[in-house]
């Protein structure tokens, strides 16, 4: 996919409007002092200054999703008999995620292995995934806490994106990554981009060099299993954690969920919502036994899942993209990159 495109800066509004003609376009918008993905519409102003506070994971994996609804029905020939009818609604609209960061796009590849390749396909996830195009903006500069390059990724990583954009002086260079992405290059307003490629590559390299590396690029086998198994290590490392779960909800690679059921008189719904392994109730069993009853056991599981267990299942791939959100937004400043670097230094 050598062909590239170029979108002049002043044409971006028109471009977004054209995109939104036959798809729901989600883009980062400034609300108060947080950046959040919102649908493109008049009055919503695009904000690409820094990575959004929360990743766009909900576009494909909604925070709360009705899996099915059901109705009680009286049988016509026997009014005493009531039967249940189940209904699903899975006609997903075409969607475009515009202006997420490479770490966000890569997060979806972490989900793909779980929701599609190995346990699924999860009809709901796959349905939305198939209908979504991801147009990523390569990071011009790292934010506090970013450590993507230590995980083999980087501010211009293309994994999980359909198009990678790089912001230049007068516009954006578009590099298609997938067939879906190629189609985007045919949109009105996009010009040929080859003359801008060099400038973009220089920007990408500069950004790469600017990312802080709390540890050299890591593979999961470098985690000290001995230290990982040591209770005292975790007691100390996460003594401040208050089990709020913010780190998991803001993480583009966390995907644990729960089901809840809501019923009115004659109908109801089964809903799937994000949940978090940082919560006490998550693993509480009916007997009262809880295999992860303490904060440190839960945090250990979170780190273990990302840096040991997931890689064990998926050819060494680490389930953290180094976006740094859990570090930036943890109320008590627990720093996963610091913990991982302690886990990999020799005993």
């Amino acid at each position, binding site marked *: 996919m050598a062909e590239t495109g170029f979108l002049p800066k002043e044409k971006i509004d028109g471009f977004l409007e054209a995109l939104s003609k036959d798809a729901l376009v989600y883009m980062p918008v400034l609300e108060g002092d947080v950046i959040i993905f919102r649908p493109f519409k008049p009055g919503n102003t695009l904000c690409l200054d820094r990575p959004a506070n929360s990743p766009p994971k909900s576009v494909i994996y909604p925070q709360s999703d009705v899996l099915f609804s059901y109705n009680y029905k009286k049988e016509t020939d026997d009014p005493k008999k009531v039967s*249940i009818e189940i209904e699903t609604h899975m006609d997903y609209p075409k969607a475009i995620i515009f202006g997420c960061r490479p770490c966000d796009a890569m997060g979806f590849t972490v989900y793909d292995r779980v929701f599609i390749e190995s346990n699924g396909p999860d009809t709901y996830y796959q349905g939305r995934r198939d209908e979504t195009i991801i147009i990523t903006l390569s990071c011009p500069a790292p934010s506090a806490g970013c450590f993507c390059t230590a995980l083999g990724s980087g501010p211009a990583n293309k994994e999980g994106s359909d198009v990678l954009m790089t912001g230049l002086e007068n516009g954006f260079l578009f590099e298609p990554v997938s067939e879906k992405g190629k189609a985007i290059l045919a949109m009105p307003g996009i010009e040929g981009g080859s003359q801008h490629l060099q400038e973009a590559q220089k920007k990408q390299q500069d950004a790469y060099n600017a990312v802080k590396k709390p540890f050299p690029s890591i593979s999961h086998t470098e985690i000290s299993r001995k230290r990982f198994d040591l209770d005292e290590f975790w007691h100390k490392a996460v003594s401040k954690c208050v089990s709020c779960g913010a780190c998991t909800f803001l993480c583009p690679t966390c995907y644990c*969920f729960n089901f809840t059921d809501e019923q009115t008189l004659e109908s109801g719904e*089964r809903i799937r919502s994000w949940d978090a392994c940082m919560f006490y109730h*998550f*693993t509480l*069993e*009916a*007997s009262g036994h809880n*295999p992860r009853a303490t904060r440190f056991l839960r945090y250990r599981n979170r780190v273990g899942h990302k840096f040991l*267990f997931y890689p064990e299942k998926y050819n060494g791939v680490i389930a953290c993209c180094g976006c740094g959100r859990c570090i930036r937004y943890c109320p008590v400043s627990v720093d996963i990159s610091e913990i991982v670097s302690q886990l990999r230094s020799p005993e």
Partner: protein
Amino acid sequence: MEQSFNPYLPELATVIKIIDETPNIKSYRVVFDDPEKMKTFSFEPGQVGQLYVFGVGEATFVINSPPTRMEYLQFSVMKAGEITNAIHDLHEGDQIGVRAPLGNSFPYDDMKGKKILFIGGGIGLAPLRTLILFMLDNRKDYDDITIIYGSRTPLDLCYKDELREWESRSDVNLILTVDNEYPGWHKRTGFVPTVLNEVAPSPDNTVAITCGPPIMIKFVLQNLAKLNFKDDHVITTLEARMKCGIGICGRCNIGSKYICKDGPIFSLVQLKESGAEI
């Protein structure tokens, strides 16, 4: 959009019979409402299902009827909380949702030609029942069958009709125990692990399969080791809070293993490898 298989959608089923097993355990025989589904449904002994009470929620239970008897699926449910209470409120003829089969199964092929020792406690007989009935339906494939089963009081023993039947069979050795003396009880008393020690079955060519409360399992495993049972000849089942049942929701892992997918049945070798606390 063309719909492919949806792993979260329960299959509608009807409760055709409810059996009172003990004061807090009832067995439910259910039949899928779709006759085609009932005909084509298959599962392996030891696999579990999620029973869904509409509007309340889902909980996990082993399918404790064997695949050799497919007129219905049986689940035995002990009252433990919200969903199990709602299940106990069901009546014959009520509809429920079933997601099954989930999880792995007993390695019954590897057990062929071997002596089988079942050790169960309380509702823990449910998964064992599947395999016992399956083996009795394929009796010639297996050597001696011994069952050690205990509960708190005689009232808490499950499947009383079957216990009577097994007791009367010459090709099954059934040993029953209750925790303490009880009026009218003339069989053994004492905890299951202790009775296991007293019976002292030989480990030669024998596979031991155990299920019961965690504390019972813990001591049974210790005592089996003392009796020189090898880790690869000891099989147990694990519990966890389960929601999705298909390895995604993140609740039931021990390291990289998911009880809902890689389990609930594990050999002691596998358990030790996974670092699970028992």
